[in-house]
């Protein structure tokens, strides 16, 4: 248990130095092990690394794809950090992305939004995605408040449910599946109208970074300020350290649980909205493709720091892109990236013992 009396209030300081060193060491060690594994598989390490670098920074398109991935990871990770301030662990990013994607598709296709002016055509679907994610996160909060259900297990189960909900939506013609013209019609939605697609920063499809990037930067800054400098941030931390003491001080535990999990869910839903409206344009089975878990790992790795989340999200965004290209070019399965991520999480969780702070 953390002793509240001796705990120095965290100021603007990002994170203590030893944990930065250990985080970087863990990432490097896991990466090195990845190289060893590539070698053990009998693949030429130089070929694999060349494919990796080509896939991460080789072309403007690769860089943009990595950044777009990082946006989703960062949003889920920021949500994780917010909930984690209240000592809650949101493992539901995957499901929140899925419901966000479903809501964004439904509104973009059937919400009659494409004729609206001033960007409302894509802002309304984004809002729908955010609200859907928020509601999905709130279910876990409601269960926690009403029945004391551990949010880890409820958010995990909600993720499974959301992923199958997505499958249902794209399988069923009465839901979001595109009209069946033949038996070969794929189980996916129609492509969303052009007006509902997110504008690209450069307007050029060879570097397709969308407006989610500036939006995410703003959200990250706001989240960092709210957590570090506002009464709300302080209350979250108070609830996280000691719910009983916090409630004696007049802070409502239920309110904090609801607000933080709803915020985490909203960010996950928004990530799903960005993914659909900014890159994929068509809702398919497997839409969330593990992004929720990558975002969760980014959040874990960051140890409560928003700057850390951004760094980890960028790392994983580029790692994923490189991993995908390695699979295509050098026949190294992308599962290698998961091995590296798992090692990072396990190492950091174990290392917390030596630096006296737990994630």
């Amino acid at each position, binding site marked *: 248990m953390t002793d509240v009396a001796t705990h120095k209030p965290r100021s603007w300081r990002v994170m203590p130095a030893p944990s930065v060193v250990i985080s970087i060491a863990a990432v490097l060690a896991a990466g090195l092990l990845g190289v060893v*594994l590539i070698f053990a598989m009998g693949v030429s390490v130089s070929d694999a690394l060349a494919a990796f670098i080509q896939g991460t920074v080789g072309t403007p398109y690769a860089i943009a794809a990595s950044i777009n991935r990082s946006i989703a990871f960062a949003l889920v990770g920021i949500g994780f950090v917010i909930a984690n301030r209240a000592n809650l662990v949101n493992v539901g990013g995957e499901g929140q992305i899925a419901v966000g994607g479903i809501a964004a598709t439904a509104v973009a296709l059937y919400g009659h939004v494409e004729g609206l002016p001033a960007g409302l055509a894509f802002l309304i679907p984004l809002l729908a995605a955010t609200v859907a994610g928020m509601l999905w996160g709130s279910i876990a909060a409601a269960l926690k408040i*009403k029945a004391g259900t551990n949010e880890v*297990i409820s958010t995990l*189960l909600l993720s499974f*449910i959301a992923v199958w909900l997505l499958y249902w939506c794209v399988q069923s013609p009465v839901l979001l599946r595109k009209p069946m013209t033949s038996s070969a019609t794929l189980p996916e939605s129609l492509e969303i109208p052009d007006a509902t697609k997110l504008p690209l920063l450069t307007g050029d499809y060879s570097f397709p970074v969308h407006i989610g990037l500036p939006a995410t930067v703003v959200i990250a800054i706001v989240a960092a300020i709210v957590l570090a400098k506002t009464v709300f941030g302080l209350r979250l931390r108070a609830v996280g350290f000691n719910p009983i003491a916090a409630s004696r001080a007049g802070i409502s535990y239920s309110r904090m649980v609801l607000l933080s999990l709803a915020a985490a869910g909203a960010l996950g839903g928004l990530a799903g909205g960005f993914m659909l409206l900014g890159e994929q344009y068509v809702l398919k089975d497997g839409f969330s493709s593990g992004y929720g878990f990558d975002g969760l790992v980014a959040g874990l790795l960051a140890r409560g720091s928003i700057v850390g989340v951004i760094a980890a999200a960028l790392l994983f965004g580029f790692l994923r892109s490189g991993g995908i290209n390695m699979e295509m070019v050098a026949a190294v399965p992308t599962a290698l990236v998961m*091995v590296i991520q798992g090692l990072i999480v396990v190492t950091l*969780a*174990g290392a917390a013992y030596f630096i006296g702070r737990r994630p």
Partner: protein
Amino acid sequence: MTWELFAVFVGSSLRLAVPLLLAGTGELVSERAGVLNMSIEGMMLAGAFAAAVGAWATGSPMLGLMICVIAVLPVALLQALLSNTLRANQIVTGIGINILILGATTLAYREIFGARSREQIPGLSKWSPPLLGNIPYFGEAVFQQVWLLYAGLAIIALTALVLRYTSIGLVVHAAGAEPRAVDKSGISVTLVRYLVVIFAGFMSALAGAFLSIGDIHTFTEGMTRGAGYLAIAAVIFGKWTIGGCILACLLFGAATALQFQLPTLGIDVPNALLIMLPYLLALLAVGGLTGRQTAPRALGEPYFRR
């Protein structure tokens, strides 16, 4: 519904419930002693993979089963080391291990099987108890099962007896409720908690082996599909009692069996809804259908002497 179909339904419910029952019992013992073991999903997957590879490489499902139990031991030791000695956050370590195992088994599967992925893996043989096997309809559909199912049920029954009637059971319960008292009585809490995690690993290994070489005779990437999390939900649903946990696992098994049964009855329910059903039931279950929850008091808190 005819008797015949009903018997098939009961048989497949039981078969689908067995991995949950095994892993759930392991998790129950671990949680009663105070260790929240999120990694049973990963340990099941590791077990399923090791059993499949072992059985395929040696040609003997029995050797596959032994290889599976040995292969999961280091994973269980890693979880035990992290959650007891290094006092790491048990949820974080569990999720980390699950990601690691999912990646590692997928990678190794592609490396080992690759193009041979369609190859049949030798599976465990079936057995039916005398007399019971002769009941009309039910004999074949319900009791003609892989022998590991019966062995597993026997282990679960034995575990229930040990927990209820022996001093071992008392120590396990006490380690989760009053670890300090256990320590004062001269028994090492750390040792008890290492052993329960290893037990959970053993049970998860059996559960995984049942999935791969007991049920479908093959391995697929990420084949546990959250069964480990369902097992954890079953422990919560059963209010940390072994009887409750068993009932919950049987319920989830029956819910899973419905997705194969309803279509044969001509009942048109969306497939996705049926696949979702066990998770939905689990969510309702942990969401307070059973009332306020009564977790072991020291659950998830690493123990150390002050």
